[in-house]
């Protein structure tokens, strides 16, 4: 079964594994909460990368924490999606000149989607995820 058909099924029930260091968690909570409710789209937070389809990496990553993030990405069963949340994952954010922060996440992990914002509002997160859905629909 080639990748496009697999992604079509994956999109219908995305299980999210959160890898947060700082502000990301405060923003994912309302998305899981009653107001924005990501479960409408079949998305539930899961605890182990073995169950996960989508790895959300939020906040700045240091030298040590990126190695663990890479290992977790490798431990996820493919096909999987990686979302970089917030400007820290895009360009290091406010820690752009710090000695130990990772500047570009995609140098270490193949990132499918960046959601800008410091931190991104829940609407921005949902809009980003919708764009993944639309992109998968168009390809299939």
């Amino acid at each position, binding site marked *: 079964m080639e990748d496009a058909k697999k992604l079509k*099924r994956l999109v219908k*029930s995305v299980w999210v594994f959160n890898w947060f260091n700082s502000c990301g968690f405060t923003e994912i909570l309302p998305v899981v909460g009653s107001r924005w409710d990501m479960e409408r789209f*079949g998305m539930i937070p899961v605890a*182990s990368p*073995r*169950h996960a389809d989508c790895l959300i990496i939020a906040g700045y990553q240091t030298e040590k924490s990126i190695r663990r993030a890479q290992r977790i990405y490798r431990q996820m*069963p493919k096909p999987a999606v990686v979302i970089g949340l917030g400007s820290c994952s895009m360009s290091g954010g406010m820690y752009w000149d710090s000695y130990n922060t990772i500047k570009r996440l995609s140098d270490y992990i193949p990132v499918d989607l960046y959601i800008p914002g410091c931190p991104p509002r829940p609407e921005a997160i949902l809009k980003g995820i919708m764009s993944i859905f639309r992109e998968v629909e168009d390809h299939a």
Partner: protein
Amino acid sequence: MIMKVLLAMVVPVAGILIGLLYKGIDRILAARMQGRVGPPLVQPLRDVRKLLVKENIVPDDAVGWLFSSMPFVALVSVMAILLYLPLGITPVLEGYGDLILVLYLLIIPSLALVLGGFASSSPYASVGGQREMVKMMSYEFPLAIAVISVAWLLYSSGAENVFSLSVISGTHVWGLAGIPGLAGLAVIFLCMLFVIPGELGRIPFDVSEADSEIAGGIFAEYSGRNLALFYLADAVKAVAIASLAVALFLPYTVSGIFGLGGAAAPAADFLFHLLKVFFVLFVSSTVVRVVTGRLAISRVVSVYWKYPVILSFLGLLLIMGGTLI
């Protein structure tokens, strides 16, 4: 005879679909109670289809043959239970198994879960496995008392072949032993409802799959189709345990009231049975799941061995008293 063989083929598969249906309704109602919109009704089916597509990772240190066979054993044993249970109509394997067999068959899925968890060599899974075993030990005591006291009620009121499920689901249990019997049975029904979330691992008792504490617990290492089989086993187990509770405590059929004859009567009874199963599942697992938080494992043991055991013993004594008068 052909009808029985046909039913024996259809009932397990129907059990899976009904189980997924209940899981979907359960998630929607839980969401609505929390003011959320909740997933579409077919979301569990979508989850299973997605899991089937994913890679099926077997860890290095795991005992491979045990790790992959346990999901298979769990689903097969749970589907086998449905054949012995009276789903509104007389059980498919009517003369070939009884109440104690169903009680023991309910142990196999959780045992397969525990062995699968231990076989996966992950520290989270072994902690989850131990917790699941302790939980099994604790909820089996009130469950055994509830089952035996219903059988005792039937036995002392003169029915014979008491442990066969068709006899149990045939007699109207509530009026048999006068007022004390009624009170005792109500207490025992309460304990049975209290056991169901423990048996299914729903929120107040999901110590073995606790996401926040032990990262997915027993399922930490399972992915892809193995996880799909466990997901289905959990769905079917909800139907099995709820229809056992319905068979014991709510054995009323609707075909008599509407006076339906021929083929319509079993169909109506089956649908009414599904309604009763939904009611039992809603009261015992969905509402409780939304309202309470997770218990610590030592609390689970004392919660199950203190109150329900005393209550159900009291119920048993009331029933004994009721039948003597």
